[in-house]
């Protein structure tokens, strides 16, 4: 609890420093903003027992940066190719991530991965719109899900 508050407070202080571009004269207002942000974050995302893994975060960020760049490049090529080469389809995939932050991250990250946009989510299933049915969408989604599970310290 204490370490969560300290960690988040530090993060928001860093954000303020970045927003103020390193200047010092606004820190009175900054302090108010940091405390307000901290209060909002504790209400919206209460600290929990589950261990958030830093190594998992680095692994996720590396994977995400690479795959989202590939996703952007791929869709750019598809858009500029002469003749429409899309073969869109809807896929239903199993979803094992717990509700809350892990699922939200999964849905949002999927929209930036190559060829996928989440369309519908129910208890244990995720419906995904795929841009091309020949792409390995299910394997892609599973790889993303595994990394998110590791990030939140959930059992795989």
């Amino acid at each position, binding site marked *: 609890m204490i370490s969560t508050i300290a960690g988040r407070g530090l993060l928001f202080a860093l954000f303020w420093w970045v927003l103020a571009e*390193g200047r010092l004269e606004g820190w009175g207002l900054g302090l108010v903003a940091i405390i307000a942000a901290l209060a909002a974050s504790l209400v919206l995302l209460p600290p929990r027992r589950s261990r958030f893994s830093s190594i998992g975060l680095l692994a996720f960020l590396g994977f995400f940066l690479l795959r989202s760049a590939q*996703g952007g490049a791929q869709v*750019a090529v598809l*858009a500029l190719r002469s003749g429409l080469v899309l073969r869109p389809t809807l896929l239903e995939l199993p979803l094992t991530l717990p509700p809350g932050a892990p699922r939200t991250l999964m849905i949002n990250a999927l*929209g*930036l991965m190559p060829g996928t946009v989440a369309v519908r989510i129910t208890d244990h299933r995720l419906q995904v719109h795929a841009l091309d049915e020949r792409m390995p969408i299910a394997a892609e989604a599973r790889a993303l899900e595994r990394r998110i599970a590791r990030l939140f310290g959930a059992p795989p």
Partner: protein
Amino acid sequence: MPGMLETASLLLLLVGAFFFFAGTVGLLRFPDVYSRLHALTKADNLGLGCILLGLAVQAESLGAALKLLLIWPLVLAASASVSFAIARRADALGIRPWRRQGD
């Protein structure tokens, strides 16, 4: 040395503009709401990343550079969740995805 930084910055800005252009072409050419979301979210994400990186390279202070780079994850979170919201709404309205006919 400053010449090299400026060249890198210029290249990143041009690449970023290219991806925004490609995303817009996709928005106009793709057949339905779902595939247009792919083009808009993914290509613009990459374009914005390149443009912010290109601007950050030229920034006058570390704080200003980090501020530019901070825009990227914030816009990313917003555009990804808006994209899901639009897809979910389209699905709830019963809009069927476009399928290739014939083969």
